[in-house]
Protein backbone atom coordinates (compact mmCIF):
# COMPACT_ATOMS: atom_id res chain seq x y z
CA UNK A 1 0.00 0.00 0.00
CA UNK A 2 1.52 3.27 -1.15
CA UNK A 3 0.92 6.65 0.48
CA UNK A 4 2.31 10.09 -0.30
CA UNK A 5 2.73 13.19 1.84
CA UNK A 6 4.63 16.28 2.85
CA UNK A 7 8.10 16.19 4.37
CA UNK A 8 10.29 18.93 5.81
CA UNK A 9 12.85 18.61 2.99
CA UNK A 10 10.20 18.59 0.30
CA UNK A 11 8.69 21.73 1.83
CA UNK A 12 12.00 23.50 2.22
CA UNK A 13 12.87 22.98 -1.45
CA UNK A 14 9.41 23.32 -2.95
CA UNK A 15 10.15 26.76 -4.37
CA UNK A 16 13.31 25.41 -6.04
CA UNK A 17 11.90 22.56 -8.04
CA UNK A 18 14.53 22.56 -10.71
CA UNK A 19 17.38 22.06 -8.24
CA UNK A 20 19.33 19.03 -7.08
CA UNK A 21 17.98 19.49 -3.54
CA UNK A 22 14.39 19.18 -4.63
CA UNK A 23 15.28 16.15 -6.75
CA UNK A 24 16.80 14.53 -3.67
CA UNK A 25 13.85 15.50 -1.52
CA UNK A 26 11.14 13.87 -3.61
CA UNK A 27 12.68 11.01 -5.62
CA UNK A 28 12.68 8.24 -3.05
CA UNK A 29 10.40 5.70 -1.49
CA UNK A 30 10.44 4.77 2.18
CA UNK A 31 9.94 1.11 3.02
CA UNK A 32 9.63 -0.81 6.25
CA UNK A 33 12.83 -2.46 7.44
CA UNK A 34 11.31 -5.85 6.78
CA UNK A 35 10.29 -5.06 3.21
CA UNK A 36 13.59 -3.31 2.58
CA UNK A 37 15.53 -6.35 3.65
CA UNK A 38 13.24 -8.76 1.87
CA UNK A 39 14.01 -6.98 -1.41
CA UNK A 40 17.68 -7.34 -0.54
CA UNK A 41 18.28 -3.61 -0.82
CA UNK A 42 21.14 -1.32 0.20
CA UNK A 43 20.68 2.41 0.94
CA UNK A 44 20.81 4.21 -2.40
CA UNK A 45 19.56 1.27 -4.44
CA UNK A 46 16.84 1.95 -6.95
CA UNK A 47 13.43 0.37 -7.06
CA UNK A 48 10.61 0.43 -9.55
CA UNK A 49 7.22 1.26 -8.08
CA UNK A 50 4.35 -0.06 -10.16
CA UNK A 51 0.63 0.57 -9.70
CA UNK A 52 -2.43 0.21 -11.89
CA UNK A 53 -1.83 3.81 -12.91
CA UNK A 54 1.84 3.88 -13.89
CA UNK A 55 5.36 3.16 -12.81
CA UNK A 56 8.33 5.17 -11.63
CA UNK A 57 11.93 4.47 -10.63
CA UNK A 58 13.05 6.01 -7.33
CA UNK A 59 15.69 5.52 -4.66
CA UNK A 60 14.89 3.18 -1.77
CA UNK A 61 15.09 4.21 1.89
CA UNK A 62 14.63 2.27 5.07
CA UNK A 63 12.19 3.69 7.64
CA UNK A 64 10.01 2.82 10.62
CA UNK A 65 6.90 2.25 8.51
CA UNK A 66 4.78 -0.79 9.26
CA UNK A 67 5.33 -3.74 6.92
CA UNK A 68 3.44 -3.44 3.67
CA UNK A 69 3.30 0.35 3.66
CA UNK A 70 5.43 2.54 1.37
CA UNK A 71 5.79 6.32 1.32
CA UNK A 72 6.88 8.67 -1.47
CA UNK A 73 7.03 12.43 -0.71
CA UNK A 74 4.41 14.45 -2.55
CA UNK A 75 5.73 15.59 -5.91
CA UNK A 76 6.27 14.56 -9.52
CA UNK A 77 7.58 11.04 -8.75
CA UNK A 78 4.62 10.13 -6.58
CA UNK A 79 2.26 11.53 -9.21
CA UNK A 80 3.40 8.97 -11.80
CA UNK A 81 1.78 6.18 -9.85
CA UNK A 82 -1.12 7.58 -7.83
CA UNK A 83 -4.79 7.00 -8.64
CA UNK A 84 -6.00 10.00 -10.65
CA UNK A 85 -9.68 9.18 -10.10
CA UNK A 86 -11.38 11.78 -7.98
CA UNK A 87 -14.56 9.77 -7.46
CA UNK A 88 -16.74 12.80 -7.86
CA UNK A 89 -14.90 14.94 -5.33
CA UNK A 90 -12.34 16.58 -7.58
CA UNK A 91 -9.60 15.16 -5.37
CA UNK A 92 -7.35 12.40 -6.69
CA UNK A 93 -6.52 9.61 -4.28
CA UNK A 94 -2.96 10.55 -3.33
CA UNK A 95 -2.88 8.14 -0.43
CA UNK A 96 -3.59 4.45 -0.40
CA UNK A 97 -2.82 2.85 -3.75
CA UNK A 98 -1.83 -0.79 -4.14
CA UNK A 99 1.70 -0.95 -5.50
CA UNK A 100 4.28 -3.55 -6.46
CA UNK A 101 7.86 -2.62 -5.67
CA UNK A 102 10.89 -4.33 -7.15
CA UNK A 103 14.60 -3.75 -7.33
CA UNK A 104 15.80 -2.29 -10.61
CA UNK A 105 18.95 -1.17 -12.39
CA UNK A 106 17.13 1.51 -14.34
CA UNK A 107 18.10 5.12 -13.68
CA UNK A 108 16.04 7.56 -11.71
CA UNK A 109 14.84 10.18 -14.17
CA UNK A 110 15.45 13.85 -13.55
CA UNK A 111 12.46 16.09 -12.97
CA UNK A 112 12.70 17.31 -16.57
CA UNK A 113 13.02 13.84 -18.06
CA UNK A 114 10.00 12.80 -16.09
CA UNK A 115 7.95 15.61 -17.60
CA UNK A 116 9.13 14.88 -21.13
CA UNK A 117 8.02 11.29 -20.81
CA UNK A 118 4.42 12.21 -20.00
Amino acid at each position, binding site marked *: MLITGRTLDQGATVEEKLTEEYFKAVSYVELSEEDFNALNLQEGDRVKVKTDFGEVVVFAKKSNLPKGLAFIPMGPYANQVID*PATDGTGMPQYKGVKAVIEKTDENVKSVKELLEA*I
Partner: protein
Amino acid sequence: MEVNVVCTFCGSVCDDGIFDTEKFKTKRLCKLGSSKFSKKERIKSPMIDGKEVSYEEAIAKAAEILVNAKRPLLYGWASTVNEAIRLGIILTEKVRGVYDQCASVCHAPSILAVIEEGLPAGTLGSIKNRADVVVFWGCNPMEAHPRHGMRYSISAKGLLVKDRKERKVIVVDVRETRTARQADLFVQVKPGYDYLVFSALRAIISGNADVVPDEVGGVSKDKLIELADIMKNAKYGAILYGLGLTQSRGRDRNVENAIKLIQLLNRYTRWVILPMRGHYNVTGAGEVPAWECGYQYAIDFSRGYPRFYPNEFSAVEVLKRGDCDAALIIASDPVAHFPKEAVKKLKEIPVIQIDPFPNMTTLVANVVIPSAIYGLEAEGTAYRMDVIPIRVKKIIDTEYWSDEKILEELLKKVEELMG
Protein backbone atom coordinates in the same frame (compact mmCIF):
# COMPACT_ATOMS: atom_id res chain seq x y z
CA MET B 1 18.12 46.16 10.34
CA GLU B 2 15.88 43.62 12.03
CA VAL B 3 12.18 43.81 11.29
CA ASN B 4 9.11 41.75 12.03
CA VAL B 5 8.23 39.29 9.28
CA VAL B 6 5.01 37.37 8.75
CA CYS B 7 5.80 33.98 7.31
CA THR B 8 4.24 33.13 3.97
CA PHE B 9 4.98 29.45 3.81
CA CYS B 10 2.45 27.24 5.54
CA GLY B 11 -1.05 27.70 6.87
CA SER B 12 0.24 28.55 10.34
CA VAL B 13 1.26 32.03 9.08
CA CYS B 14 3.57 32.64 12.05
CA ASP B 15 3.67 36.38 12.59
CA ASP B 16 6.50 36.54 15.13
CA GLY B 17 9.43 36.10 12.76
CA ILE B 18 12.37 38.44 12.51
CA PHE B 19 14.14 39.31 9.30
CA ASP B 20 17.60 40.80 9.11
CA THR B 21 17.61 42.91 5.96
CA GLU B 22 21.42 43.09 5.79
CA LYS B 23 22.16 39.43 6.32
CA PHE B 24 19.03 38.39 4.41
CA LYS B 25 18.24 35.89 7.13
CA THR B 26 15.34 35.09 9.41
CA LYS B 27 15.19 34.27 13.09
CA ARG B 28 12.58 32.24 14.99
CA LEU B 29 11.07 30.69 11.87
CA CYS B 30 11.25 26.96 11.15
CA LYS B 31 13.20 25.25 8.38
CA LEU B 32 10.33 25.82 5.94
CA GLY B 33 9.95 29.46 6.90
CA SER B 34 13.65 30.27 6.75
CA SER B 35 13.93 28.62 3.35
CA LYS B 36 11.03 30.79 2.21
CA PHE B 37 12.99 33.93 3.03
CA SER B 38 16.38 32.77 1.77
CA LYS B 39 17.80 33.81 -1.58
CA LYS B 40 16.71 31.52 -4.38
CA GLU B 41 16.75 31.34 -8.11
CA ARG B 42 14.05 33.55 -9.62
CA ILE B 43 12.37 33.79 -12.97
CA LYS B 44 14.45 36.57 -14.46
CA SER B 45 12.09 38.23 -16.83
CA PRO B 46 8.67 37.86 -18.40
CA MET B 47 8.86 35.40 -21.28
CA ILE B 48 6.84 34.36 -24.28
CA ASP B 49 7.80 30.94 -25.61
CA GLY B 50 11.14 31.18 -23.83
CA LYS B 51 11.98 34.63 -25.20
CA GLU B 52 12.45 37.46 -22.72
CA VAL B 53 9.87 40.24 -23.13
CA SER B 54 8.49 43.17 -21.14
CA TYR B 55 5.71 42.84 -18.58
CA GLU B 56 3.39 44.68 -20.93
CA GLU B 57 4.07 42.30 -23.82
CA ALA B 58 3.65 39.21 -21.69
CA ILE B 59 0.41 40.53 -20.24
CA ALA B 60 -0.94 41.41 -23.68
CA LYS B 61 -0.21 37.89 -24.89
CA ALA B 62 -1.78 36.39 -21.79
CA ALA B 63 -4.92 38.47 -22.28
CA GLU B 64 -5.16 37.30 -25.87
CA ILE B 65 -4.91 33.64 -24.84
CA LEU B 66 -7.60 34.03 -22.19
CA VAL B 67 -10.01 35.96 -24.37
CA ASN B 68 -9.68 33.52 -27.27
CA ALA B 69 -10.21 30.41 -25.20
CA LYS B 70 -13.55 28.65 -25.11
CA ARG B 71 -13.04 27.71 -21.48
CA PRO B 72 -9.82 28.79 -19.79
CA LEU B 73 -8.82 27.31 -16.44
CA LEU B 74 -7.47 29.78 -13.88
CA TYR B 75 -5.80 27.73 -11.20
CA GLY B 76 -3.55 28.13 -8.20
CA TRP B 77 -4.09 31.07 -5.82
CA ALA B 78 -2.99 29.38 -2.59
CA SER B 79 0.29 31.28 -2.30
CA THR B 80 -0.89 34.73 -3.12
CA VAL B 81 -2.87 37.35 -1.20
CA ASN B 82 -6.60 38.04 -1.05
CA GLU B 83 -6.28 41.23 -3.08
CA ALA B 84 -4.89 39.23 -6.01
CA ILE B 85 -7.40 36.43 -5.55
CA ARG B 86 -10.28 38.89 -5.74
CA LEU B 87 -8.98 40.21 -9.07
CA GLY B 88 -8.59 36.61 -10.18
CA ILE B 89 -12.27 35.94 -9.57
CA ILE B 90 -13.30 39.05 -11.47
CA LEU B 91 -10.97 38.02 -14.30
CA THR B 92 -12.36 34.48 -14.42
CA GLU B 93 -15.90 35.87 -14.47
CA LYS B 94 -14.94 38.18 -17.35
CA VAL B 95 -13.38 35.47 -19.51
CA ARG B 96 -16.06 32.98 -18.43
CA GLY B 97 -13.52 30.42 -17.37
CA VAL B 98 -13.10 28.02 -14.47
CA TYR B 99 -11.67 29.20 -11.14
CA ASP B 100 -10.03 26.52 -9.08
CA GLN B 101 -7.48 26.62 -6.32
CA CYS B 102 -4.97 24.34 -4.68
CA ALA B 103 -7.47 23.12 -2.11
CA SER B 104 -8.93 20.95 -4.84
CA VAL B 105 -5.95 18.61 -4.41
CA CYS B 106 -5.66 19.25 -0.69
CA HIS B 107 -8.55 20.17 1.61
CA ALA B 108 -11.40 20.36 -0.89
CA PRO B 109 -12.96 17.28 0.70
CA SER B 110 -13.04 19.33 3.90
CA ILE B 111 -15.12 21.93 2.10
CA LEU B 112 -17.48 19.21 0.87
CA ALA B 113 -17.77 17.93 4.43
CA VAL B 114 -18.55 21.42 5.70
CA ILE B 115 -21.34 21.60 3.12
CA GLU B 116 -22.77 18.43 4.63
CA GLU B 117 -22.34 19.19 8.31
CA GLY B 118 -20.81 22.62 8.96
CA LEU B 119 -17.56 23.18 10.80
CA PRO B 120 -17.60 23.36 14.60
CA ALA B 121 -14.27 25.09 14.92
CA GLY B 122 -12.25 27.43 17.06
CA THR B 123 -9.29 29.67 16.37
CA LEU B 124 -5.78 28.45 17.10
CA GLY B 125 -5.80 30.86 20.03
CA SER B 126 -8.80 29.16 21.58
CA ILE B 127 -7.11 25.78 21.20
CA LYS B 128 -3.89 27.07 22.73
CA ASN B 129 -5.72 28.56 25.71
CA ARG B 130 -8.30 25.90 26.42
CA ALA B 131 -7.56 22.55 24.82
CA ASP B 132 -6.57 19.91 27.37
CA VAL B 133 -6.83 17.20 24.71
CA VAL B 134 -5.48 17.64 21.19
CA VAL B 135 -5.88 14.91 18.57
CA PHE B 136 -3.77 15.07 15.42
CA TRP B 137 -5.58 12.89 12.92
CA GLY B 138 -3.91 12.09 9.62
CA CYS B 139 -1.57 15.02 9.88
CA ASN B 140 2.05 15.48 10.73
CA PRO B 141 2.67 19.06 11.85
CA MET B 142 6.25 18.28 12.88
CA GLU B 143 7.03 18.12 9.15
CA ALA B 144 4.28 20.12 7.49
CA HIS B 145 3.65 22.87 10.09
CA PRO B 146 6.77 22.69 12.26
CA ARG B 147 5.95 25.50 14.72
CA HIS B 148 2.29 24.61 15.11
CA GLY B 149 2.87 22.46 18.15
CA MET B 150 4.90 25.05 19.96
CA ARG B 151 2.74 28.03 19.12
CA TYR B 152 -0.78 26.66 19.19
CA SER B 153 -1.19 23.04 20.11
CA ILE B 154 1.29 20.59 21.62
CA SER B 155 3.41 22.63 24.00
CA ALA B 156 1.78 26.07 23.65
CA LYS B 157 1.39 27.98 26.90
CA GLY B 158 -2.25 28.93 27.25
CA LEU B 159 -4.53 30.69 29.67
CA LEU B 160 -6.27 27.65 31.11
CA VAL B 161 -3.93 24.95 29.89
CA LYS B 162 -0.56 26.20 30.95
CA ASP B 163 1.82 23.83 29.20
CA ARG B 164 2.53 20.41 27.70
CA LYS B 165 2.04 18.66 31.02
CA GLU B 166 -1.54 19.84 31.28
CA ARG B 167 -2.38 18.70 27.79
CA LYS B 168 -2.95 15.22 26.42
CA VAL B 169 -1.69 14.78 22.86
CA ILE B 170 -3.01 11.97 20.69
CA VAL B 171 -1.94 11.04 17.19
CA VAL B 172 -4.06 8.90 14.89
CA ASP B 173 -2.28 7.93 11.69
CA VAL B 174 -1.38 5.07 9.43
CA ARG B 175 2.30 5.39 10.28
CA GLU B 176 4.32 6.51 13.25
CA THR B 177 5.17 10.03 12.13
CA ARG B 178 7.51 12.48 13.82
CA THR B 179 4.44 13.98 15.46
CA ALA B 180 3.37 10.56 16.71
CA ARG B 181 6.63 10.31 18.59
CA GLN B 182 5.59 13.35 20.65
CA ALA B 183 2.20 11.93 21.53
CA ASP B 184 0.88 10.49 24.78
CA LEU B 185 -1.15 8.05 22.76
CA PHE B 186 -0.60 6.82 19.22
CA VAL B 187 -3.42 5.02 17.46
CA GLN B 188 -2.47 3.28 14.25
CA VAL B 189 -5.23 2.93 11.68
CA LYS B 190 -5.17 0.65 8.67
CA PRO B 191 -4.85 2.88 5.54
CA GLY B 192 -8.30 3.74 4.20
CA TYR B 193 -10.25 2.87 7.36
CA ASP B 194 -10.56 6.19 9.19
CA TYR B 195 -14.21 6.44 8.23
CA LEU B 196 -15.09 3.28 10.08
CA VAL B 197 -13.06 4.32 13.11
CA PHE B 198 -15.11 7.52 13.42
CA SER B 199 -18.37 5.58 13.19
CA ALA B 200 -17.11 3.21 15.88
CA LEU B 201 -16.15 6.07 18.19
CA ARG B 202 -19.56 7.65 17.73
CA ALA B 203 -21.23 4.37 18.56
CA ILE B 204 -19.15 3.93 21.71
CA ILE B 205 -19.72 7.48 22.91
CA SER B 206 -23.46 7.34 22.33
CA GLY B 207 -23.79 4.11 24.31
CA ASN B 208 -23.80 1.51 21.56
CA ALA B 209 -20.40 -0.01 22.27
CA ASP B 210 -22.00 -3.43 22.33
CA VAL B 211 -22.42 -3.56 18.54
CA VAL B 212 -18.87 -2.45 17.76
CA PRO B 213 -16.72 -5.36 16.54
CA ASP B 214 -13.52 -6.30 18.40
CA GLU B 215 -11.42 -4.55 15.84
CA VAL B 216 -12.24 -1.65 13.51
CA GLY B 217 -9.84 -0.38 10.87
CA GLY B 218 -6.93 -2.14 12.51
CA VAL B 219 -7.68 -0.63 15.93
CA SER B 220 -8.73 -2.86 18.82
CA LYS B 221 -12.03 -2.18 20.52
CA ASP B 222 -10.21 -1.61 23.82
CA LYS B 223 -8.14 1.11 22.27
CA LEU B 224 -11.21 2.68 20.72
CA ILE B 225 -12.93 2.69 24.10
CA GLU B 226 -9.85 4.25 25.66
CA LEU B 227 -9.83 6.96 23.00
CA ALA B 228 -13.57 7.56 23.36
CA ASP B 229 -13.18 7.92 27.13
CA ILE B 230 -10.41 10.45 26.81
CA MET B 231 -12.51 12.43 24.36
CA LYS B 232 -15.63 12.40 26.47
CA ASN B 233 -13.72 13.41 29.58
CA ALA B 234 -11.84 16.29 28.02
CA LYS B 235 -12.76 19.78 29.19
CA TYR B 236 -12.09 21.24 25.78
CA GLY B 237 -10.79 19.06 23.01
CA ALA B 238 -9.61 19.70 19.47
CA ILE B 239 -9.22 17.44 16.47
CA LEU B 240 -6.67 18.83 14.05
CA TYR B 241 -6.74 16.81 10.87
CA GLY B 242 -4.81 16.72 7.65
CA LEU B 243 -4.43 15.14 4.26
CA GLY B 244 -4.42 11.70 5.85
CA LEU B 245 -8.18 12.09 5.91
CA THR B 246 -8.76 14.13 2.77
CA GLN B 247 -6.45 12.41 0.30
CA SER B 248 -7.14 8.82 1.20
CA ARG B 249 -10.07 6.48 0.78
CA GLY B 250 -13.18 8.14 2.16
CA ARG B 251 -11.96 11.70 1.59
CA ASP B 252 -14.87 14.10 2.31
CA ARG B 253 -16.79 11.38 4.14
CA ASN B 254 -13.89 10.88 6.55
CA VAL B 255 -14.06 14.53 7.45
CA GLU B 256 -17.83 14.52 7.58
CA ASN B 257 -17.78 11.62 10.01
CA ALA B 258 -15.17 13.41 12.13
CA ILE B 259 -17.45 16.44 12.25
CA LYS B 260 -20.37 14.26 13.30
CA LEU B 261 -18.19 12.94 16.09
CA ILE B 262 -17.49 16.52 17.18
CA GLN B 263 -21.20 17.36 17.10
CA LEU B 264 -21.85 14.41 19.37
CA LEU B 265 -19.03 15.26 21.76
CA ASN B 266 -20.40 18.77 22.20
CA ARG B 267 -23.44 17.26 23.88
CA TYR B 268 -21.16 16.18 26.71
CA THR B 269 -18.31 18.67 26.71
CA ARG B 270 -16.61 21.10 24.36
CA TRP B 271 -14.80 19.98 21.20
CA VAL B 272 -13.71 21.76 18.07
CA ILE B 273 -12.21 20.57 14.79
CA LEU B 274 -9.91 22.35 12.41
CA PRO B 275 -8.22 21.38 9.14
CA MET B 276 -4.45 21.82 8.99
CA ARG B 277 -4.32 23.88 5.82
CA GLY B 278 -1.14 23.72 3.75
CA HIS B 279 -0.22 26.89 1.88
CA TYR B 280 -0.17 30.18 3.74
CA ASN B 281 -3.25 31.51 1.99
CA VAL B 282 -5.04 28.48 0.65
CA THR B 283 -7.76 29.49 3.08
CA GLY B 284 -8.08 32.89 1.39
CA ALA B 285 -8.19 31.17 -2.00
CA GLY B 286 -11.52 29.73 -0.83
CA GLU B 287 -12.86 32.54 1.34
CA VAL B 288 -12.48 35.28 -1.27
CA PRO B 289 -14.41 33.48 -4.02
CA ALA B 290 -17.06 32.56 -1.43
CA TRP B 291 -17.90 36.22 -0.86
CA GLU B 292 -17.33 37.26 -4.47
CA CYS B 293 -19.31 34.50 -6.13
CA GLY B 294 -20.68 32.09 -3.55
CA TYR B 295 -18.39 29.08 -3.71
CA GLN B 296 -14.92 28.12 -2.56
CA TYR B 297 -13.45 26.19 -5.51
CA ALA B 298 -14.27 24.35 -8.75
CA ILE B 299 -16.29 27.30 -10.03
CA ASP B 300 -17.34 27.52 -13.66
CA PHE B 301 -18.41 30.84 -15.19
CA SER B 302 -19.09 29.64 -18.72
CA ARG B 303 -22.75 30.60 -18.49
CA GLY B 304 -21.96 34.07 -17.17
CA TYR B 305 -22.69 33.14 -13.59
CA PRO B 306 -20.88 30.91 -11.09
CA ARG B 307 -21.65 27.22 -10.73
CA PHE B 308 -20.04 24.67 -8.43
CA TYR B 309 -19.52 21.04 -9.47
CA PRO B 310 -16.26 19.69 -8.07
CA ASN B 311 -16.62 16.40 -9.93
CA GLU B 312 -16.07 18.26 -13.19
CA PHE B 313 -14.79 21.79 -12.47
CA SER B 314 -11.92 21.00 -10.14
CA ALA B 315 -8.65 21.48 -12.01
CA VAL B 316 -7.65 17.82 -12.14
CA GLU B 317 -11.05 16.89 -13.56
CA VAL B 318 -11.17 19.81 -16.01
CA LEU B 319 -7.79 18.70 -17.36
CA LYS B 320 -8.52 14.98 -17.33
CA ARG B 321 -11.85 15.54 -19.06
CA GLY B 322 -10.23 17.76 -21.66
CA ASP B 323 -12.60 20.49 -20.63
CA CYS B 324 -10.35 23.52 -21.05
CA ASP B 325 -8.37 24.95 -23.92
CA ALA B 326 -6.04 27.33 -22.06
CA ALA B 327 -4.79 27.76 -18.52
CA LEU B 328 -3.50 30.48 -16.26
CA ILE B 329 -1.49 29.06 -13.39
CA ILE B 330 -0.69 31.38 -10.55
CA ALA B 331 1.26 30.78 -7.35
CA SER B 332 1.32 27.02 -7.64
CA ASP B 333 2.90 24.17 -9.56
CA PRO B 334 0.33 21.73 -10.90
CA VAL B 335 2.84 20.08 -13.20
CA ALA B 336 4.69 18.87 -10.10
CA HIS B 337 1.60 18.06 -8.07
CA PHE B 338 -1.11 16.79 -10.41
CA PRO B 339 -1.52 13.21 -11.59
CA LYS B 340 0.17 12.63 -14.90
CA GLU B 341 -3.10 12.45 -16.91
CA ALA B 342 -3.80 16.04 -15.93
CA VAL B 343 -0.24 17.16 -16.63
CA LYS B 344 -0.55 15.71 -20.12
CA LYS B 345 -3.38 18.13 -20.95
CA LEU B 346 -1.35 21.06 -19.60
CA LYS B 347 1.40 20.15 -22.05
CA GLU B 348 -1.10 20.37 -24.93
CA ILE B 349 -2.76 23.74 -24.31
CA PRO B 350 -1.47 27.33 -24.02
CA VAL B 351 -0.37 27.94 -20.44
CA ILE B 352 0.26 31.26 -18.71
CA GLN B 353 2.26 31.15 -15.51
CA ILE B 354 2.54 33.83 -12.83
CA ASP B 355 5.06 32.91 -10.11
CA PRO B 356 8.19 34.24 -8.41
CA PHE B 357 10.12 30.98 -8.90
CA PRO B 358 10.84 28.69 -11.82
CA ASN B 359 9.20 25.33 -11.28
CA MET B 360 7.95 22.40 -13.31
CA THR B 361 5.02 24.42 -14.62
CA THR B 362 7.51 26.93 -16.05
CA LEU B 363 8.75 24.11 -18.26
CA VAL B 364 5.37 23.84 -20.01
CA ALA B 365 4.29 27.51 -19.88
CA ASN B 366 4.03 29.60 -23.05
CA VAL B 367 3.80 32.89 -21.21
CA VAL B 368 5.78 33.27 -17.99
CA ILE B 369 5.24 36.33 -15.79
CA PRO B 370 7.52 36.59 -12.76
CA SER B 371 6.09 38.16 -9.64
CA ALA B 372 7.14 39.60 -6.31
CA ILE B 373 7.25 37.42 -3.20
CA TYR B 374 4.45 38.25 -0.79
CA GLY B 375 5.62 38.67 2.78
CA LEU B 376 9.01 39.85 1.58
CA GLU B 377 8.63 42.08 -1.47
CA ALA B 378 4.92 42.83 -1.40
CA GLU B 379 2.15 43.15 1.17
CA GLY B 380 -1.39 41.93 1.32
CA THR B 381 -3.94 39.99 3.35
CA ALA B 382 -3.79 36.27 4.00
CA TYR B 383 -5.90 33.91 6.08
CA ARG B 384 -4.32 31.52 8.49
CA MET B 385 -5.70 27.96 8.59
CA ASP B 386 -8.32 29.09 11.13
CA VAL B 387 -9.49 31.93 8.84
CA ILE B 388 -7.81 34.59 10.98
CA PRO B 389 -6.77 37.44 8.68
CA ILE B 390 -3.13 38.46 8.91
CA ARG B 391 -1.48 41.16 6.87
CA VAL B 392 1.75 39.91 5.32
CA LYS B 393 4.41 42.56 4.90
CA LYS B 394 6.62 44.17 2.36
CA ILE B 395 10.14 44.28 3.76
CA ILE B 396 12.39 44.96 0.81
CA ASP B 397 11.99 46.68 -2.56
CA THR B 398 11.86 44.82 -5.82
CA GLU B 399 11.61 45.38 -9.55
CA TYR B 400 9.17 42.50 -9.83
CA TRP B 401 5.49 43.33 -10.13
CA SER B 402 3.15 41.97 -7.50
CA ASP B 403 0.44 39.47 -8.46
CA GLU B 404 -2.05 42.20 -7.67
CA LYS B 405 -0.51 44.60 -10.15
CA ILE B 406 -0.07 41.92 -12.84
CA LEU B 407 -3.71 40.89 -12.51
CA GLU B 408 -4.93 44.47 -12.48
CA GLU B 409 -3.15 45.11 -15.76
CA LEU B 410 -4.25 41.78 -17.19
CA LEU B 411 -7.85 42.57 -16.30
CA LYS B 412 -7.59 45.94 -18.01
CA LYS B 413 -6.13 44.34 -21.11
CA VAL B 414 -8.84 41.68 -21.18
CA GLU B 415 -11.55 44.34 -20.85
CA GLU B 416 -9.94 46.23 -23.71
CA LEU B 417 -9.90 43.17 -25.96
CA MET B 418 -13.47 42.27 -25.11
CA GLY B 419 -14.61 45.83 -25.84
